[in-house]
């Protein structure tokens, strides 16, 4: 007889170190999917008991109570109560408590214990509590709660074996179901605080690291300067640190292309491999270093506890356009990619604010735009310095990010005023203690992001590249006719139709051509241009030189700037449109989003082009 392994849910307040514990228990063998019927991310993984039997673990979204005030919290409640259709109820719970925060976290624990499922409590982050001068009596806590309590330090893998052993015992002897409605919220709170007080062995003033760091990082003036400096450093790093690895990837693809050119006879298949596959996919994979650097910063800010401070600092600024600091975190994530950003809006309590945040998230400069920006900036902006350590190219990139932000602020205030007609926004959030990010957790997060990107390059971008290569290669221009292959091909003819529309904003035929496949994903614009120019090149030698110089020779500066301005706003990403539809339950808002963003893109590109022209560029 085969039996499903028991399902154990990790549940607890946000910031209790739940995910770190989950990573420590399950290692890198994790599966990320969605809960049935909702778009909340479900992380599951396998742990094993001493005797080798497997346990399926899930990491439930952090919650403050079983009475939800966000989508994430609703999922946690439904899973714990066994009310989520298509999802089995956990066989046991591991309640993760922040040892330094018992007063506030114990009430939710009492609510969970009253559900009657086999339960083990992980008293987590005891090291941080001790750092702050707090010593607790775990045995006493266990007696008061009526369930086993194990001290753990997830990030140092402390207490994991005893936790699994207790879990095994708990699964063997189910507890009698309690009476969940027996006591009121207030009474539960009172009991939680009484227990929290009673289990303290000793309490000294401690070093209060968090408080001291906050007095610098939340300083009314200093805090703003630090946040801006951090963001600036982040963008300079994306540009500066990635140079060397990008060079390696480029030479790797060049070698591969040369090898194929040498090994295969000239013909359609060789053109398919070198001009289509390698030129297309290669020109996108080359941006992996930049994407990873950006995600590295975001993961570090999140893991260290700084992210909510950034929200605190930004709250007033966000309030000016009808949003709040809550929106800042999803919007900052959108700098990496709008999709996780839009999904992160689920923590926003106010539904109008959530909608407005979703609608402006694509204006944050996501990593997929970097390939486009980098190529154009590299080709048209000289690599000079305008001050110590400040490169002109980095400065232009920073300017593009700022344009996106300003556009988003403008859009947000208009949307909140006229579309969602929201009166007020609110900001109410727990600020976790600072801690050193754990290398393994960051590495795991980076690996998961890199994998998603490479899979995209390997599927969507690969497919789009091949289709485009085919559209560009057929039908063949007649020999000696003097008509260029690009103009003669199917794609060339489609672009002919598009060209009159984009001509007034300074776009040429090649750009019109690149915009078509770039609807799938923005970065495809670069591989599309690479394919267009490789195919139009007179010989292989010309095709082998990189894209930048060709563009510089072919485009005016005004056209290049208009192209950049277009990509600040254009909603060219099918995945983002799809996730917006899912998160807003219909086509109304994604259609609204696409329309207003294209209108903005067209206007911005036009204004840029004609302004640049009037300066004689």
């Amino acid at each position, binding site marked *: 007889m085969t039996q499903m392994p028991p399902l154990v849910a990790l549940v607890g307040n946000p910031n209790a170190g739940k995910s770190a514990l989950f990573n420590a228990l399950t290692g890198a063998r994790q599966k990320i999917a969605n809960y049935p019927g909702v778009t909340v991310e479900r992380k599951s993984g396998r742990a094993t008991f001493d005797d080798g039997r497997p346990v399926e673990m899930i990491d439930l979204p952090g919650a403050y109570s079983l009475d939800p005030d966000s989508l994430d919290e609703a999922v946690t409640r439904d899973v714990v109560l066994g009310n989520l259709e298509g999802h089995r109820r956990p066989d046991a719970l591991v309640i993760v408590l922040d040892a330094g925060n018992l*007063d*506030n976290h114990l009430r939710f624990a009492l609510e969970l214990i009253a559900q009657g499922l086999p339960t083990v409590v992980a008293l987590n982050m005891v090291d941080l509590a001790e750092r702050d001068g707090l010593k607790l009596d775990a045995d006493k806590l266990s007696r008061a709660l009526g369930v086993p309590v194990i001290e753990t330090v997830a990030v140092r893998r402390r207490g994991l074996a005893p936790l699994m052993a207790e879990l095994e015992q708990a699964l063997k002897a189910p507890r009698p179901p309690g009476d969940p409605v027996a006591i009121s919220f207030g009474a539960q709170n009172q009991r939680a605080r009484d227990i929290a007080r009673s289990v303290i062995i000793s309490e000294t003033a401690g070093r209060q690291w968090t408080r001291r760091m*906050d007095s610098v990082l939340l300083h009314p003036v200093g805090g703003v300067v630090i946040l801006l400096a951090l963001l600036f450093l982040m963008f300079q790093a994306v540009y500066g640190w990635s140079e060397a690895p990008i060079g390696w990837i480029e030479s790797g693809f060049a070698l591969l292309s040369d090898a194929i050119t040498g090994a295969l006879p000239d013909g359609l298949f060789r053109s398919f491999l070198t001009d289509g596959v390698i030129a297309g996919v290669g020109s996108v994979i080359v941006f992996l270093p930049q994407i990873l650097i950006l995600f590295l910063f975001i993961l570090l800010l999140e893991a260290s506890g700084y992210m909510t401070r950034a929200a*605190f*600092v930004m*709250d*007033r600024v966000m309030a000016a356009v009808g949003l709040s600091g809550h929106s800042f975190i999803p919007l900052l994530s959108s700098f990496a990619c709008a999709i996780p950003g839009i999904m992160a809006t689920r923590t926003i309590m106010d539904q109008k604010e959530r909608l407005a945040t979703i609608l402006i998230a694509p204006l944050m400069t996501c990593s997929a735009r970097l390939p486009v920006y980098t190529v154009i900036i590299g080709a048209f902006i000289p690599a000079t310095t305008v001050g110590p350590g400040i490169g002109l190219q980095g400065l232009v990139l920073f300017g593009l990010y700022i344009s996106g932000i300003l556009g988003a602020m403008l859009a947000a205030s208009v949307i909140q005023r006229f579309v969602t007609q929201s009166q007020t926004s609110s900001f*109410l959030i727990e*600020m976790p203690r600072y801690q050193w990010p754990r290398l393994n957790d960051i590495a795991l997060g980076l690996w998961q992001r890199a994998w998603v990107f490479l899979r995209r390059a390997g599927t969507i971008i690969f497919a789009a590249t091949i289709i485009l290569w085919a559209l560009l290669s057929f039908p063949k221009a007649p020999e000696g006719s003097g008509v260029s292959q690009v103009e003669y091909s199917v794609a060339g003819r489609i672009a002919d139709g598009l060209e009159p529309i984009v001509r007034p904003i300074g776009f040429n035929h090649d750009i019109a051509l690149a915009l078509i496949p770039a609807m799938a994903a923005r970065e495809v614009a670069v591989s599309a241009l690479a394919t267009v120019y490789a195919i139009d090149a007179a010989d292989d030698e010309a095709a082998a030189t990189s894209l930048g110089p060709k563009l510089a020779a072919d485009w005016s500066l005004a056209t290049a700037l208009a192209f950049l301005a277009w990509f600040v706003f254009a909603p060219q990403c099918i995945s983002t449109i799809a996730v917006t539809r899912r998160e807003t339950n219909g086509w109304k808002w994604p259609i609204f989003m696409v329309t207003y963003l294209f209108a903005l893109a067209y206007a911005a590109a036009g204004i840029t082009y004609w302004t640049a022209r009037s300066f004689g560029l």
Partner: protein
Amino acid sequence: MQLDHLPLNRAAVIRAIDWDVLPDQEGHRLRSLGFEPGVAIEALHKGILMWRDPLAVRVGRMTVALRTNVAAAIDCELKT
């Protein structure tokens, strides 16, 4: 004294919370974060530049950020 007027870094206790003036959602979140009469509270930091909003306060052992309009509904008493 209302929480938004509480001097920084002085131990205090929540005396009463005017739940009626708070939007439902904010009242609910405030409760689940552990704001209740009798709980120890301390104002730690005020927001940026000229706004001095939001506030960072310590409630129990937790640091929470909230806006002054919500803080105004929380009546506190300084410990002597």
